[in-house]
């Protein structure tokens, strides 16, 4: 774990740049995080990010793609359109949550 400066703020991140402290995240930070990976946030993105943040708060872990689809009601195809190629990782990165644990 190390410190990184994102949008002029010091935040804790892991070796791959995922934020590790839930409460350090803000909506403005999300804009910068998204820009880092070439995504411009729209309301559709924000809806997904909000679901991830809420779900993490109640469940204690980053939701899987399946969970975002079945519980959050957002089709997988749409997640791939919003967060191309690697939606699970990209969503978690922007939402300031730990990288989703690939279950062993």
């Amino acid at each position, binding site marked *: 774990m190390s410190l990184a400066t994102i949008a002029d703020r010091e935040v804790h991140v892991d070796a791959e*740049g995922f934020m590790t402290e839930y409460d350090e995240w803000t909506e403005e930070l999300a804009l910068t995080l998204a820009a880092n990976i070439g995504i411009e946030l729209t309301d559709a993105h924000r809806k997904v990010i909000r679901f991830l943040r809420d779900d993490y708060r109640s469940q204690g872990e980053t939701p899987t793609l399946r969970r975002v689809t079945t519980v959050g009601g957002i089709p997988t195809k749409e997640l*791939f359109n919003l967060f191309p190629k*690697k939606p699970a990782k990209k969503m978690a990165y922007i939402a300031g949550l730990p990288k989703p644990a*690939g*279950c062993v």
Partner: protein
Amino acid sequence: MKRLLVLGAGTAGTMVVNKLRPLLARDEWTITVVDQDDDHLYQPGLLFIPFGSYSPGEVVKPRRNQLRPGVALVLGEIDVVRPDESTVRLADGRELAYDYLVIATGTTPRPDQTPGMMGAEWRQSVFDFYTLEGANALAEKLATWEGGRLVVHITEMPIKCPPAPLEFAFLADSFFEERGMRDRVDITYVTPLDGAFTKPVASRLLNGMLEERRIRLEPDFIIERVDDEAKSIVSYDEREIPFDLLVTVPLNMGADYVARSGMGDELNYVPVDKHTFLSAHWDNVFAIGDASDIPTSKAGSVAHFAVDVFTGNFLQHIRGEEMSGHFDGHANCFVESGAGRAMLIDFNYDLEPLPGKYPFPVVGPLTLLAERRMNHWGKLMFKWIYWHALLPGRRLPVPTSMSMTGKEVVTTTTTEKERV
């Protein structure tokens, strides 16, 4: 009389009842276990059936013969659990009441959950091997297959016995080599993960093993559908991988009655405390083995280590005491690598597989995270151990919690993984 009801007489459920029966007085406790049929399947054996090295008769035995005297077996399909009333209703209308319930109905491959998977090509050129029917059908197919593009595919994690698809790819390589037709087979390993395995040290090693065997790795592949006309699998990001023979591991889900009972997550796994297995919602309900949502491998070895912890916890819990057993997520698996060799990996919630010796530090005799002939024999011997020591609930001479003694700590300079 107090009533303990266990749902599922598979690996976990059978161990639970056999361990608890001698510990719960017969004049105070009844123990009943429910299953839909009387066939106990030795699931680790399924991997070998497609290659003709095990016959179906070696992997199935009657469930009732694995249960200790004093355990009642009820055969029937479970319709619904009513946890607030502490009753279970079977599909034929029978009602079973309980004081304590243990859910051990495991996880099942669900090819119906991926569009096109069960289409016209199902069991023609699209196969699974996690069911006896699938493994048998694939054995027949492989016996006469003349080669082409073999795609070994995982739909979504978590799956039962996570190394099994890798082992399948290694064994297939070796099988075609022995038949002198390896040059006519092109093997691709397709996974939703970002490498061969999730844990970095093991993943790096296994990636290398795929490469040595000329097996192409297609990572980060989230399947949308099987196109059974074009004979290809299609991902959400529109990659298409053509196949002549697809060996897939379908989506794994817990039992449907769990969902009907309102007791499961989005994959029908029962949320429990990952150290004690007690339900997050009901104080007289536990879930153990593959049926629970604990974040470790869905595997018999996990169920075995888990039941060791569970037994003590259950006895404390029914006496109203604090549960002192603390499961660490310990798992170990033999990984068949083909040509009569295997690797062994040992890990838990917090520690990834590392090189070393097992079960005894330094002396072994099994070697962790390296291909050895001895490990392969260990895997074959395990079938005997399973039927004669594991299921009856005898103590095995291996520690329940993971040990770091004798392991070599490998520092992972996080392989500059592609930016998110």
